[in-house]
Each structure stands twice: as C-alpha cells, then as structure tokens.
C-alpha cells in the first residue's frame, strides 16, 4: 500500500511540472496575452507585474523565478485587481466551493448508490424502470437547465427556499441539490450496471449454494465488486464537480472559486486564471491519488501493482 502511495506521488510531480511549464510558455507567447507589448495596460499594474515576474530578465531566469514562486505558493498579483494576491483570493473562495462540492457528492452517493442497488435487485420491475428512466432524464438535464428551473419552481413560485447567495445553511440546499442530483443519476446507473454484472458472476452462485440469503449476498459478496465502477468513476466525478461548480456558482451567485474563475476568464484576468488553473490541477492530482488508494483498499489484486 505504501509503495502505491509513494509511486503515485512521484508520478504526480512531473505531471505538475509539465502543466506549470506549459502554462508558463502559453502565456508568454499567446497573441493578445498579458505580456503582449501592444496591449494597453494601466501603469500600476504594469509595474507590479514587471517586478513580480521579472519581465526585464532573460526568459530562462523568468522561468526559474516563476517556478520558485510557485513552490512558495506565490501566484502573483491579480491582473485586474492588483491590490489582491491571487493566492489570497483562492484562499477565500475555495472553502466555499469545497463545502458545495462535499455536499453535492454526499447527496449523489447517498441517493445514487441505494437506488442503483435496488434497481439491480429488482431488475425489470417498476423499481428498476422508474428510477432508471428518471436517472436517464437526470443525465440529460444539465445543471444549467435544472438550476434555474428549481429556482423558478421552489423559490420564485413556492417561496420555499432562498434563491441566491451563500449566507447561511439554507442557501446550501438548492445548489448542492442541483449539482448532486445530476451526479446521483450517473452513480445510480453505474451502481446498477456494476451490481448486475457482479451478480451474474460465478462466485455469487457459489455463495447461494452455501445457503446465503439475498441480503448477505448483496452486502458481503456483491458489494465490493459491484461498487468498483463507482469508485473508478469518482476520479472523473471530482473533475465534473469542479466543472459543475462553475455553472452552479454562476447561477446561484455563490462566491466560490468557480465563480471567481469564470469571472476572471471573462475579464481577462490572466494571473488569476493561471493561478486557479494550477491550483485546480494540483487538487485534481491529489484527489485522483485518493481514488487510487480507495481502489487498492477495495481490490486485493490491485494492491500488488
């Protein structure tokens, strides 16, 4: 197990380095990018940037300064609002997105997995068709359609939940529900497929031949194998939740990292965009490490790699 952790960590470092280098060169040489000398930038910003990035130094030195700054967690000043440091902005916004993400994931898992399991056990009955059709609809109803609809229905018309903002716990419900339900649909389908496939396998027949009842077969024998696709899905799911946060935070006006990122992109706040990209990349890599560890814990065969 420890070997796995170590090897993955070692793999992560070159990946991060590649991303950092790519983004560095992309920004330096992008036409219309921040360092294009033809761009008209306010003087204070120009000064701050030059001092931070060392624009008067040779390219190689700039690159080394850049890397050094990164290792210290210094992502530079925001392009649009130079009084603020990018890392400060990220530090304020990220906890909000984190809360949203964790809640959505919990909703997705707590709704999706049980529904998928029931659907697999009661295959071809109404307990299968109904949830699966709903979940199919769920996948096809993107968050940016579902969100406004939910606001319209529950907030504007019924006045049950607050529509926008992020002031208290009641504000958390609609956004995490919107994002969570979408992934609940995916997870329900994956769970059902995984369970169905596992339940066909020979070792389930052996368990039955030993006299195990349905509950025991489900929990002790089929669960680990059947849920493996869900664990594998967690990797892309994390990525999806991040993407989802952009949309959700825009719709519900939540001051999270996603909204900051989108606003920064729209405003051409280059340093903010770059800083966030690097932050997200690091986050994803560590989340995927978590998924790998989880997979190894579930599957004894995977532990040996």
């Amino acid at each position: 197990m420890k070997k796995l952790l170590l090897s993955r960590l070692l793999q992560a470092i070159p990946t991060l380095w590649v991303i950092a280098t790519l983004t560095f060169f992309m920004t330096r040489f992008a036409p219309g990018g921040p360092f294009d000398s033809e761009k008209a930038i306010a003087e204070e910003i120009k000064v701050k940037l030059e001092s931070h990035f060392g624009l008067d130094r040779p390219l190689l030195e700039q690159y080394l300064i850049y890397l050094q700054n990164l290792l210290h967690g210094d992502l530079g000043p925001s392009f649009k609002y130079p009084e603020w440091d990018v890392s400060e902005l990220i530090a304020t916004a990220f906890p909000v997105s984190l809360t949203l993400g964790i809640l959505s994931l919990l909703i997705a898992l707590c709704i999706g997995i049980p529904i998928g399991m029931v659907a697999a056990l009661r295959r071809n009955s109404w307990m299968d068709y109904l949830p699966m059709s709903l979940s199919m609809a769920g996948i096809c109803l993107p968050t940016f359609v579902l969100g406004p609809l939910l606001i319209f229905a529950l907030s504007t018309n019924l006045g049950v939940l607050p529509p926008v903002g992020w002031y208290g716990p009641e504000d958390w419900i609609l956004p995490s529900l919107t994002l969570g339900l979408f992934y609940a649909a995916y997870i329900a389908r994956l769970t059902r497929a995984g369970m169905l496939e596992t339940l066909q396998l020979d070792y389930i027949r052996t368990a039955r031949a030993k006299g195990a009842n349905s509950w025991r077969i489900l929990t002790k024998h089929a669960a680990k194998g059947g849920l493996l696709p869900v664990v594998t899905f967690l990797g892309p799911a994390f990525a999806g939740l991040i993407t989802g946060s952009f949309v959700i935070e825009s719709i519900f006006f939540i001051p999270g990292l996603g909204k900051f990122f989108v606003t920064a992109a729209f405003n051409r706040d280059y340093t903010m965009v770059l800083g966030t990209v690097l932050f997200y990349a690091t986050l994803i890599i560590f989340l995927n490490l978590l998924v790998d560890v989880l997979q190894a814990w579930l599957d004894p065969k995977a532990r040996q790699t």
Partner: protein
Amino acid sequence: MGQLNIQNLSVNFHSREGIFQAVNDIDLEIKEGEIVGLVGESGSGKSVTCNSILQLLPCPPAEISQGAIHWTNKDLLKQKEQNMERIRGQEISMIFQDPMSSLNPYLTVLEQVAEPLIIHNLATPEEAMQQASDMLVEVGVDRIRTSPNSYPHEFSGGMRQRAMIAMALITKPALLLADEPTTALDVTVQAKILSILKEACKKLKVSVLFVSHDLGLVAELADRVVVMYRGKVIEQSDTNTLFRNPEHPYVKALIACRPTLENSSNRLPTVDDFISPGDSKPKAIKSPPSSAPLIGKKTLVETKGLTVEFTSKDGKVRAVDDVSLAILEGSTHGLVGESGSGKTTLGRSILQLIKKTSGQILLHGLPIQEQSSLQKLHFRKSMQIIFQDPYASLNPRLTIEQTLSEPMTVHGIGKSKQDRKDRVIALLEEVGLNSEHLSRYPHQFSGGQRQRICVARALTTEPKFIVCDECVSAMDVSVQAQVLNLLKSLQESRGLTYLFISHDLGVVKFMSDEISVMQKGKVVETGTAEAIYRDPQMEYTRKLIDAVPRANRKAEFYS
C-alpha cells in the same frame, strides 16, 4: 427409495428463438453413501439437472416444467426460498467447475471456507475460522497455517479446488453435488483432487453426484454411472456393468471413441459408426498398427537449443528452455505436458508467432532467420497452425468463402476469382463440408464444424507442416474422434507433417509417431509413442501416465 430421488424432471429454456428442452422427463436416484457419476456431452442436460437440485437455475430463462426431487420427505422443487437457503450448504453442498471464478476475489480463502458454518449458525465466528483452517489442512492446503489471510488469486488452480472442497464439506452435508470439478485442472492435479474427494466423502459418509463429460474419469470414482444424451437418461447401471456390457449404442460409441493409451489403431470409431440405421455392428476398429514409418525419412522441421524468455513483474521466465527437436517429414510429433510446460509457446515460436530469445529453427535443414519479406511469405506458406478454440479462431465478420479465399489472394494461389472459389469448394469437401456453407458466417456453425473450417484454412496455402495446438481439447469426445480421424486421413492423402500439442496423453499417443514430454519449459523425455507408454524412462512421464484414469488407459472394457 434412495436418499435423493429425481422423478419425471423436465427443464425448458426460453429464448428469443423459442423454447429449448434441456432435460426431458428423467429419473435419477442416489442412495445413501453412494457416488453416482452423471455423464454426458455438451447439450446433454447433465449440468442443468445438477443445478436444478438446489434450485440454482436462473428462472427465467429456465423453467422447471414438471417433476419432483425428493429429499428427506420433502420435494425440493416445491420448497420456498427460505427453506432452500437452509438446505443449501448444510444438507446438500455443491462445488463447481472453475475454482478461480467460483471463489470471491475480494474475500480471503479462510473467510469463505468458514462462511457455511456462520451462515447456518453451526459455530461462532472464531470457532468457524479455526474449523476452516483445520479442514483446509485436511484437504492438503497446508500453507493456510503460515498465510491465513491469503486471497484466491494467490493460490494455484489445484489449491483453489481443494479449498472449494473444504468449503463444501465443512458442514458435513449428506449429499455433495460436483459439477465438472476437475475439468479445468491439469491431469496430475486432477488425479489428486479426485482422490481427496473420494477419501473425504467416504470418511464423512457423504453421497456424491459427480457430473462430468469424461466417462473414464467417472469410472475411477463412481459406484454407479448414469449417461445422458440430449436431455434424456439413456442408460444407468453400476460402473463395471456399464463398461463391460453397455447396452445403448450411444454409450457403446462413447466408450469406444476415446483414444485410450493401449489403443493402437489408425482410426477412431465415431458415434456415426454406432448410431447408423439398421447397422448395429461397428465397422472394423482394430486395424493393424502401421509399421514403423520412421526409418529413412528426412527431417522437415528442427529446433536447436530453442529458448523463449518472457519478462514479467516476477522477473524473467523461461517458457521454453533450450529445446532441441527433430520432426520427420510425413510423421506426427506429439508434444505433451501440463499447463506451464511451454508446449504451446514452443509451437507458436516455431511458427514465429512468438519471438524466440535464442536458438535456431530449421526448415529443410536451413535456418529460418529474420528474412526478407519474400522469404517470409514462402515460410508462411509452408508452415501453418490450427488453434484450440474454434469460436475465437474465425473472423466473425467474414463469410467462410472470404476467410478461405483470402490466404489464396495473399499468396497468389489461383488464377482468377472463380478459380479460387473452386479451390475453396474443393477444400471444404475435403474436410467434410460442402459448397452451401460458402456464404455462411462462423456463428452459424457448431464447434466441430468450425474446427473443420480452420483445418481447411490451414490447408489453403498447401503447407507441408501444421502445428495442431490443442485443437481437439475443447471438444466433446464424439466430435473429437471425427476431427482426429480427419487429421489422420489428410496426413495420408497430402503427406503432411504434424506437431501435435495436447495435454491429453491418450489423444497424443493416438496421433503421434514420436512423443516429447515437456515440463517447465524443458523436454523431459522423447521417444516413439509406444516406447513412451510401455517403458517410460523419466519420473515425470510415469507420473503423467499414472494420472490417466484406468478406463482411459485400456480399451479392455469393449472389444
């Protein structure tokens, strides 16, 4: 009244194509302490019968349309699921064919062996684990003491099957159902498992229903034999009577068409010889053994110090270790060994499908090197291969005509499309098929027919040398006999040279003039087929011969 009594059982399978009757009104009885062998080829309904006892058939698509299975004053077919759960694993246990897929890869072996005790509340969890450990040692899995937390994938096939036996017998059931438990195992392992099974069951006074396609194997173990064919029981009697005096022509055929170690004829009888209208006497089986054809023949294919090495995460593995063979033109060289012996790798590396690490392969005395593409093509024309799995050996998207004419196109055989088509038809007729099969697809043929098509395909380039890589191992005995006869007659008519690879000593002996025995990559012994059997020099060869069930060694039961 026996302990288990099946009466008038019929089982149907519903599919898109219609209703298929797998079991048709059968009666079967197992008395206390008895070992009953249930024998049949594929499609006979033996597995379906076995699975229906514990109601393990998936219903739908299966449907038990009639019948009763009596067990200790109950009709098992009328029991509710709860009652069945009580009976399964406690009164009646079952073991299955493939121990790798039948054990849960996510749980330790010990947990799984202990589980029946826990399910049926026969012991506390700690007691159960201890009893499981003891039981495993009893069946020969000693390493459970040193590595108690082992998972199934860490065990070999034989070990896993022993674990399954321990798991089935730990609750001391009254009846054990064994569905082809040794089919997936090597011959020597198979022999051991059989003896463990026999010993344990006699000791615990467990009756056994042993399902198998191998009549000879069943004869080793069973007190009584029941033979099924196409869903019906066609004969049942005690073992000796069945073999000495079979009544039903199909049973006579089954017994006769196995290539036994003593049989030295040139042709195997097939089912058609026995079940032809009106003619109840089989055609001549014993033809005089062909006189030593080996003198004066030239060597066609030769290997010198051939080695094939693979690198895996455990290090370097020598699948083929310094093998030197000489195969004479027009003869068949048999290659026999168990899994891991390297026989398949050897066959494929001679054909350059696997890269050799060192050594030489010679054709007509000239070494085959990394050649120019022209030479390679010529080489490919002369040496061909037939594989084991007829289902995977044909491209499912091509018609038979396309599959057979493509090699001709590539090698420039045949002057026109029509010419090629004629040649293809001729080939099909040579292997016992005909022109109406040209436009069909592989999935429309049976296993035996597909293998014939593979034989035809191997012949399209007019080769001199063909490697037969376990090409009858996946077949029923009756179909096997037909294909083996075909291969032999083709050898005579075309002067072919074969390298015949198999794990089945009887089949190898029937086909081969010379045999090499392989173990762990090395050739252990080489000699003429008769010499290897009558006077084995090496320990391992003797072990292999001893592991063959007695009934498959001698043809004494039928003359």
